[in-house]
């Protein structure tokens, strides 16, 4: 009946047949484009050559021509019988290039979870490293970073698959690397993030943490005259404010309060402090240090006499300083920080002829950190060229040379672990406010003045590093050749390499101003070099057979990485401390050392088949076989397959009537990926080492030299094999309401099995040997990634675009080892009696472990010492949660006693949700863009409170303002426990839930107003493009976290979220200019 009606309608109003051809902006045919007669269900699809023919009818027939990746076009047929339609590239996400594996596809074709990032979204953010710009831009990509310029960051795609080595693999112009800190943001053309196995597993090993493919700019295929672009970004970062500290008067009063709090109620407090005197009320001194005397008033000091004895040079005899009290209080955070300038300039040259294409990029970035003498510089030169040698052969190269210098960086892991570092930022909150920065003659003031314990003057520490120097220089790139063997068969070969060299020296002041001083002036010098290479050969066959499209890739890859040697030298006490004088030749006590890293190799074969039918049904299969030198000869090779399929539902006839859906694709995939990132290159070997730290000994009794000793440094496991993660992914992508709304949703699950874990050895076998990785553990990550883009226009010239990105993550350890179910990790610095990080089955990675604080002891709930050691008024009251039976096993039941069995899980640093909102409004030539980032459901262990909130933790050192709200008999709902002298199990020595704070935050990362010069003006000054903009970064942060900044990174996947000295991300102001001529 329906068919009859259709036929009837056709026959009734037939006006004839229209033929046509659909091409893109390069006049290349677009196969598979949909051609519909507007207002009807009549339609057709273009053939391989872009041709179509359609019967038209009606009064004023209009054809609607659409193809994914292009702007929809309506053509009024009129009297035409032959129509040429050129479709413009659509701005929609679907048209984006997706650099999957060794190929380039469009989003339309992809069958797996991949995200692309537009470069222009990123360049306005003034970060040191490119990967920081990805924060909040890609659903499922977590970037935890800090405020140091040039810092490394924790970058994780879809959670934490393993106990380490979860960093993504970066592919820069086809060359794999673990580090992209050399890249200049303006050189980047395209960034693709491959999140699931069905796409990433073509990279097999090392892709388990996801793959980020970065392509740099190049000349276009179409001949184009030289274009020169210039982009500049200048601005400054404001250090913001430090933590609230007690002022000198408050500190003195609270010191007296601590003495009162520590005195037995039946006794009289014995007030006694070297500075504040012995009276019932503390007295602020006028001088805190005059030749070693403390707590002096103006009248007690003969200033002229004292100044005549002044000496701060240990070589000239005893130190004699004259230091006034700074009763107004010193802002130490302010003293070590600065308004930090930023500049970046990039010049780009692009052009192409019929047979050659090139891009030249020159970039300079100078960025100061908010901490004094923390500076970042990066100068890069990039040259990308490609030449056609005849019709079938192309050769090219992508090459970058980089000079990079990061000075004054704090924290290990190239700065990523600054939050666990007891650094100068922490010192700013340990240094009493009554101490001035300088003494009366301009020397440094410090805790050599008695009664302030041992913090070091952080300004002196910063100044001491001002002559330090160091840089890394290197080259990165590849040479490639492509040969079109047949029309549809291309062979590509590429040799990539990464070379790096570094050099530097640093000084360590001999100090006099502190209570604990460096005994000597130290100097050290270091240098080293690294090298890696990769060699890749692929064949690609791509052909369209009618409605069938086939894309086959087969390849081979070999690489060697980790070739690294370095040398260090150090010495003490040069004759002159002039940095121009000092070399290793002019210091005493010379020591030298060097390292030679064991490199690793991979040998791999891989293939991919991509098939599509009528541009509606897509199937992709990938497989890769990897061999790794990190495994013993029996388990070296692993085979990792992946499959995915997609169905473009909107391509079906029955969807044609659903006009609000422009495009709808449903897809699913499964794949396996191998991982050996965590595995040492020498995992298979039992090794002995000679080490000055671990095994040298003065057997001869010389007092000044050692004999070489050997020890078992590593236990080998020749049977370790690939760790395998199984990832499944289902998702859909939809383009709705005429391109106004773009939705991508993915549900995924990643199960890591045979997880490689260096199972701790029993110490009866020796506690110094590194245990080998064994395939014993497992982990599960599940999540949802979402992206919504909505754009539209109000009236003629107001447009907007909103992008919402969000991802939910659940991470759980499901097995640790055969015989036990947890392992503890100690952060880089920890003053508590035990660690607060336990990785245990059933918990997330790096979970916080300690006592659950249920409140503070008030007189009503005090318990004897035998129940909780050190119990006392105003101290922590812990929950009794567990006990041990006679055989030492946990019972899970309270046992009336608080001991180590009662420790429990008190938080997790893994965010449950991360997301971003990007809002852009265009008004004529103006645009306003803002971008917010949020991390929800993660906890932070605020270890800095150990220093600032207890009197007994380095008694006399600075304390924070929370002390004013500490426990007293009249303040039973305090922020901190009683301020007192004791340090025990119930006060400051144990990890507990009081340190754990909600680390959720929402930050407006960027707000930019831009203006694009109108074309009239451009023509007048002969410019193609000109844009000026101004922006603010880190405009505000909403968080309940009490530390400096909730962006708290860490050392590794099993060890993060601990904050003792975090370097905050603070507000900056930027002005930018971009022109092309």
């Amino acid at each position, binding site marked *: 009946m329906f068919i009859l009606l259709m036929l009837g309608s056709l026959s009734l109003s037939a006006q004839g047949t229209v033929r046509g051809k659909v091409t893109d902006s390069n006049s290349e045919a677009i196969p598979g484009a949909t051609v519909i007669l507007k207002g009807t269900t009549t339609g057709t699809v273009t053939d391989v050559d872009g041709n179509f023919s359609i019967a038209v009818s009606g009064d004023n027939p209009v054809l609607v021509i659409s193809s994914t990746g292009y702007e929809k076009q309506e053509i009024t047929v009129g009297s035409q019988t032959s129509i040429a339609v050129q479709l413009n590239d659509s701005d929609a996400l679907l048209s984006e290039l997706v650099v999957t594996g060794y190929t380039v596809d469009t989003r339309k074709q992809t069958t797996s979870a991949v995200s692309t990032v537009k470069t222009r979204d990123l360049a306005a953010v003034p970060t040191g490293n490119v990967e920081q710009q990805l924060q909040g831009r890609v659903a499922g990509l977590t970037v935890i970073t800090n405020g140091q310029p040039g810092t490394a960051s924790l970058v994780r795609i879809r959670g934490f698959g393993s106990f380490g080595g979860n960093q993504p693999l970066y592919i820069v112009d086809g060359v794999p690397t673990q580090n992209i800190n050399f890249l200049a943001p303006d050189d980047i053309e395209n960034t693709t993030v491959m999140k699931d196995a069905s796409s990433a597993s073509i990279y097999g090993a090392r892709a388990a943490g996801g793959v980020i493919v970065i392509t740099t700019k190049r000349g276009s295929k179409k001949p184009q005259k030289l274009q020169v672009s210039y982009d500049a970004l200048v601005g400054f970062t404001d250090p913001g404010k430090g933590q609230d500290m007690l002022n000198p008067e408050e500190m003195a009063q609270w010191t007296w309060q601590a003495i009162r709090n520590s005195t037995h109620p039946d006794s009289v407090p014995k007030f006694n402090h070297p500075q504040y005197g012995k009276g019932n009320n503390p007295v602020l001194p006028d001088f805190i240090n005059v030749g070693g005397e403390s707590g002096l008033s103006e009248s007690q000091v003969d200033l002229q006499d004292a100044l005549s004895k002044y000496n701060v040079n240990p070589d000239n005899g005893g130190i004699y300083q004259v230091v006034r009290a700074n009763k107004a209080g010193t802002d130490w955070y302010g003293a070590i920080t600065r308004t930090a300038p930023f500049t970046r300039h990039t010049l780009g040259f692009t052009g192409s002829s019929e047979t050659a294409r090139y891009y030249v990029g020159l970039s300079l970035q100078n960025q100061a950190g908010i901490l004094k003498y923390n500076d970042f510089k990066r100068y890069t030169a990039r040259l990308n060229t490609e030449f056609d040698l005849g019709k079938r052969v192309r050769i090219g190269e992508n090459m970058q040379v980089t000079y990079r210098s990061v000075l004054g960086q704090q924290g290990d892991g190239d700065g990523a672990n600054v939050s666990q570092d007891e650094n100068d930022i922490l010192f700013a909150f340990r240094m009493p406010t009554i101490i001035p920065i300088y003494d009366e003659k301009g020397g440094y003031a410090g805790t050599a003045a008695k009664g302030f314990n041992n913090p070091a003057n952080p300004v002196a520490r910063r100044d001491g590093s001002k002559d330090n120097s160091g840089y890394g220089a290197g080259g990165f790139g590849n040479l490639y050749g492509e040969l079109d063997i047949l029309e549809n068969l291309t062979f590509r070969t590429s040799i990539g390499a990464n070379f790096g060299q570094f050099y530097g020296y640093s000084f360590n002041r001999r100090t006099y101003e502190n209570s604990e001083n460096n005994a000597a002036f130290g100097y050290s010098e270091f240098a080293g070099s690294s090298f890696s290479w990769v060699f890749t050969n692929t064949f690609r066959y791509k052909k369209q057979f009618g409605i069938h499209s086939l894309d086959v890739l087969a390849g081979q890859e070999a690489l060697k990485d980790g070739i690294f040697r370095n040398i260090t030298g150090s010495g003490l006490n040069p004759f002159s401390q002039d940095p121009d004088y000092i070399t290793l030749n002019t210091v005493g006590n010379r020591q030298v050392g060097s390292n030679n890293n064991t490199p690793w*190799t991979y040998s791999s074969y891989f293939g991919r088949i991509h098939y599509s039918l009528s541009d509606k049904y897509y199937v992709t299969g990938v497989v890769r076989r990897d061999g790794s030198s990190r495994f013993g000869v029996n388990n070296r090779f692993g085979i990792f397959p992946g499959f995915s399929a997609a169905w473009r539902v909107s391509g079906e006839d029955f969807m044609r009537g659903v006009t609000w859906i422009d495009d709808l694709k449903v897809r699913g995939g499964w794949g396996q990926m191998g991982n050996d990132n965590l595995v040492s290159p020498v995992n298979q070997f039992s090794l002995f080492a000679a080490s000055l730290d671990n095994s040298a000994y003065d*057997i001869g009794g010389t007092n000044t030299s050692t004999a070489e000793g050997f020890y078992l440094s590593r236990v080998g496991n020749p049977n370790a094999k690939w760790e395998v993660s199984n990832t499944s992914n289902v998702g859909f992508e939809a383009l709705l309401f005429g391109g106004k709304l773009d939705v991508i949703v993915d549900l995924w699950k990643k199960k890591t099995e045979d997880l490689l874990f260096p199972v701790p050895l029993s110490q009866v076998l020796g506690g110094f040997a590194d245990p080998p990785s064994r395939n014993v553990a497992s982990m599960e990550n599940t999540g949802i990634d979402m992206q919504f883009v909505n754009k539209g226009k109000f009236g003629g010239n107001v447009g907007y675009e909103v992008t919402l990105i969000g991802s939910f993550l659940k991470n759980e350890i499901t097995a640790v080892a055969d015989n036990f179910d947890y392992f503890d990790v100690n952060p880089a610095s920890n003053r508590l009696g035990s660690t607060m990080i336990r990785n245990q089955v059933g918990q997330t990675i790096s979970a916080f472990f300690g006592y659950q604080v249920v409140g503070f002891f008030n007189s009503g709930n005090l318990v004897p010492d035998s129940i909780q050691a050190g119990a006392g008024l105003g101290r922590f009251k812990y929950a009794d949660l567990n006990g041990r039976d006679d055989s030492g096993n946990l019972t899970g039941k309270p046992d009336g006693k608080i001991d180590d069995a009662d420790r429990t899980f008190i938080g997790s640093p893994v965010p449950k949700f991360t997301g971003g909102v990007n809002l852009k409004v265009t008004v004529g030539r103006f645009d306003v863009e803002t971008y917010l980032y949020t991390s929800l459901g993660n906890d932070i262990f605020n270890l800095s409170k150990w220093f600032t909130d207890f009197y007994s933790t380095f008694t006399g050192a600075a304390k924070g303002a929370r002390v004013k709200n500490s426990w007293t008999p009249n303040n039973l709902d305090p922020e901190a426990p009683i301020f007192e002298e004791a340090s025990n199990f119930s006060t400051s020595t144990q990890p507990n839930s009081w340190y754990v704070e909600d680390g959720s935050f929402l930050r407006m990362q960027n707000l930019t107003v831009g203006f694009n010069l109108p074309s009239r003006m451009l023509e007048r000054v002969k410019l193609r493009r000109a844009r000026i903009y101004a922006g603010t970064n880190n405009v505000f942060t909403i968080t309940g976290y009490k530390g400096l900044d909730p962006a708290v990174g860490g050392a590794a996947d099993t060890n993060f979220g601990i904050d003792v000295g975090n370097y905050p991300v603070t507000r900056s102001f930027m002005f930018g200019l971009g022109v092309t001529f």
Partner: protein
Amino acid sequence: MKNLTNKLMVVASIALAANLLLSACKESFLDVEPTGALTDQVLSSRKGLDGLLVGAYSVLTGRGDWYGGVGNWVHGSIRGGDANKGTDAGDQAVANPVQRFETLPNNGVVGGKWRLTYEGVARCNTLLRLIGSTTDPTVTDADKTRITAEARFLRGLYYFELVRIWKNVPYVDETMTAEEAVAVPNNADVYPKIEADLDYAWNNLPELQTAAGRANKWAAGAYLAKVYLYQNKHAAAKPIFDDIILRGSTSTGEKYDLMDNYSDVFNISFDNNKETVFAVQHAVNTGSTNNASHEFVLNFPYASGSDVPAGCCGFFQPSFELVNSFRTDANGLPLLDGSYNNGTNAVANDYGVTSAQPFTPDAGPLDPRLDHSVGRRGIPYLDWIDHPGASWIRDQNYGGPYSPKKYVFRRATQDNLTDGSSWTRGWTSQNTILMRFADVLLMAAECEIEAGDVDLARTYVNRVRARAANPSTWVKRGDGSNAANYVIGLYNTPWTAADKDAARAAVRFERKLELSGEGHRFFDLVRWGIASTVINAYLQFDGAKLTTALGGATFAAKDLLYPIPQGQIDIHGADVLKQNDGY
């Protein structure tokens, strides 16, 4: 021209590619040999085995763990009441529960000691395993015997540490596989194994060694006898001690004797002197401060300036109880009735007095060894200055008025024998003396009381006291006068078998005075069976003054042993490694 360049580039690329492809396709491409390390085959040569032996010795230093060395300043001295942790409440708070006997099984002080001591055991086992399988013809039987004997000496020493600290420890030796080792329960008596190792060393080590730091026959004998003594096998220990006292000599061949000056025993310049039976060797400016006396690096007065040694970190402050013990009667004998803490017998101190306030040091009779062992206000602190009292103490209210002295370097040795490469000069080359001849004499005295000639014990004790009684060795002021009122005498009344108790009391007290702060006290109290009484009395006496550090602390039966580290129980399984009672 351009075309030619391109072609050349293509050719070059293809050549390079082919080359790489060939090498990459070879199976051996994935065989990457380790760099900068050795395998066991290489080490089974004589030099290799000797290097492994050096590695086994090197664990004695604690390798950078403040609590892992064999000096036992926390485990032996602080727990025995010689000293408290000192410094302030917050620094190294991990040791606070140890001095208060509130130690939990996850305590880092306990964990560090376990880890390092078993590392020592493991290195000995590795060496013994390799020496048994060596096929290197240049390794002679004599080499094998000597190396084996030294390794077994060290293994005996490490197990002795384990057994007196935890008692119930798994015994792992070189014959076991890793799986077997982890399955060994901790319920067997380990002493017979220790005796076997030390007996082998005693019978096989040479008297004269090739290096001062190596244990010789006499060191092995002294340890064997000490191990007997710990088991109250006095009769077995006595002949060995007799032999050592009669014929014993240092590893470099010097006959054992007491140094003339008590203070010289602890002078870096006299390391490995004739009194040294066995010592941990330390060296400075070697490229790692772990080779210096890291275990004691925190134990210097706390002050800045050039008149104070090291200046950091104020730990290990001698107790009131110990200082009072040095009170003597008119005959120069100690107050064995315990009255030294009473009233005016207690030594006057500057607790609660600032350095700016006047203070007069104690004027009563004192054993001169006090001022070689303890730094106290007004008394010359080695060749530095007179101890100024509170200004050298980090938190006098918390740790008391005293500073340690035995392991503090002299100003004269500062530039050459301390390590200036880091934040304190507390890393020195001073050896940690594990056993010295005075210790041997006093142990022999115990044996004589229980299984020999009681009055010979008096002779041994008097030999130790006579050295201390030489007035020329007492601490002097600049004008040559004695720094305090030193009165010390000998036991002139013969000791009789009828009154062994008095003899025991005298010998035990002599050990306390002579060997204070040297890591022995706690273990002595435990083996004498008087730990609970003595330590509780100390806690009560010092706890009344140091209320924050020690107030309210008590010693219970469980505290005779440390808890076994919980983390290790979790690895072995609670059924294999059973926790000590009471934890």
